[in-house]
């Protein structure tokens, strides 16, 4: 079974987010890129499928800072082939552009299953996975948290609102937007990543970037502090007293 995992990078929220001088996008110099958390789950789900019944996994990433590390880490977990897409990313990236970047590679690869993170917190134009699926003419199910696949068919668990989940049957090939892998992403020790660096190679592909379909914002800004919470001051005892008093006023106590 062939599995492809296209991944993307998002700004690491641990770092301070700064808007650039023009005021309509994040300052690229302040951004520290991190592999999208949901894509990390997608890689894990692919490895789980490989462990369940054997698979050949290709991970594809745009050439952002840290892409090599992320790809080698995926190899250390069990990915078999690594592809990096170089392009001019200076103008930014969006879900539509990503879908266009991945489509030709996946067209050539013809995987049975494509797994990708269901969303990226930096996206303003939806899920790259859904866009990709339709571009390839493949079915798409998003918010998937479990997959079993055999003989041209997959059975997936999809999340529905209200804590409900459902089991769906999907004919392969198909694209799945991963919400969570069946088990949390495993730890891969640095020694193994370093070994992967020696034994694996990253194939590079160059492409043009097409951002149409997404929108460039006119302005980006931190949310207005307007209705900020009334911060309670004092030491632990003071604050606990105040909260108790507030609850009492609400009629809770």
């Amino acid at each position, binding site marked *: 079974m062939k599995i492809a995992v296209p991944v993307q990078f998002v700004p690491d929220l641990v770092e301070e987010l700064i808007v650039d001088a023009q005021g309509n996008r994040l300052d690229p110099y302040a951004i520290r890129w991190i592999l999208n958390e949901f894509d990390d789950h997608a890689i894990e789900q692919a490895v789980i499928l490989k462990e369940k019944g054997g698979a050949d996994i290709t991970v594809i990433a745009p050439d952002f800072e840290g892409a090599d590390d992320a790809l080698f880490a995926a190899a250390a977990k069990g990915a078999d082939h690594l592809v990096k897409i170089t392009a001019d990313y200076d103008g930014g990236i969006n879900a539509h552009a990503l879908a266009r970047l991945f489509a030709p590679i996946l067209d050539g690869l013809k995987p049975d299953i494509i797994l990708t993170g269901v969303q990226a917190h930096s996206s*303003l134009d*939806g899920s790259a996975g859904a866009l990709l699926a339709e571009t390839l003419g493949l079915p798409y199910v998003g918010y998937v948290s479990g997959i079993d696949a055999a003989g041209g068919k997959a059975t997936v668990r999809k999340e529905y609102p*209200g804590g409900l989940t459902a089991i769906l049957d999907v004919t392969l090939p198909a694209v799945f937007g991963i919400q969570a892998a069946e088990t949390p992403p495993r730890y891969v020790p640095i020694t193994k990543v370093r070994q992967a660096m020696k034994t694996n190679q990253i194939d590079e592909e160059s492409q043009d970037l097409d951002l149409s379909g997404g929108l460039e914002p006119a302005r980006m800004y931190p949310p207005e502090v307007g209705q900020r*919470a009334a911060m309670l001051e004092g030491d632990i005892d003071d604050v*606990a007293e105040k909260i108790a008093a507030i609850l009492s006023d609400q009629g809770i106590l």
Partner: protein
Amino acid sequence: MNNDIYVLIEHVRGQIADISYIMLAQANQLAPSTGGKVIALLLGQGAQGLASDLAADRVAYIDHPALAEFTGEATQRVLADILARETPRLVLMGDTTIGSDVAGMLSARLNLPLVSACRAIRVEAGCLAFTSQTCGGKMMADGVLPTGTTLVLMVPGAFKPDQGRAAKAPAVETLAAPDLGGLRVSLKQYNEPASEDVDITREAILVGVGRGIQREDNLELAQELAEALGGVVCATRPVVDQNWLPTTRLVGKSGKTVKPKVYIALGISGAPEHSESITGSEMIIAVNTDAAAPIFDMAKYGTTIDLLDLLPVLSEKVRQAKSG
């Protein structure tokens, strides 16, 4: 192109999601400016009854067995069929586990622009402007919606669901379903969530725990507070993913929406996936050591004292106040 605003109504097992009403409210506010009608798109099988309180000018109802339960593929085909004939100004869908699947597929199929995580659309200088949230709620983005049919994925913003409910049932027009043969996705069955656990949507006092609880052992501090208050513990996704609490306690995008009297948010950052499901709370008290956490934008009261230090003291004070 007409100036209508389409709203995709989300419903699962006979229940219409709040986001649908919120979108109707938003649509109704815009319609006068676009000069079009608000048309609710209701897909299902034998689901006409759900149209009764939709605040729309009219409901376009499509009935088909393949639409009995939601799947992205079937819904997307129906919408694609409609949009091949009609060219509304906007198509609003919920940025949910339902709407998000559909919107992406439609955008690629029909080459229509797509905006997601949208909190509000308003008229500005003769154009339609949008405000979306991004980066876990830490950044907002404003922009202008392109002219031409645009798909918008909406999240709860300023409108409340009641503003999208109609007192009088709207007119329902039944449309013919397109050919829905050869579907590659079908729903086999639902997984019933464990029913023995409490229903957090009915609780008046909720103590929510997030990543800031750090380890499973610390949960009992939250349990203590919940017990002292006569409430129940619920959690965000990271906590539930670790299996520290069952999924029945999950509050968020793929969990439950709650409307308690008091919601005490412990170690919760306030990222949209969770925060959009607690906006119905009467009062939120947030405890988070990060003073810049978005949760403080929706909480009424807050403190940066470490929850691990605060909880034992607070629980004690609550117990004292209740007994004394």
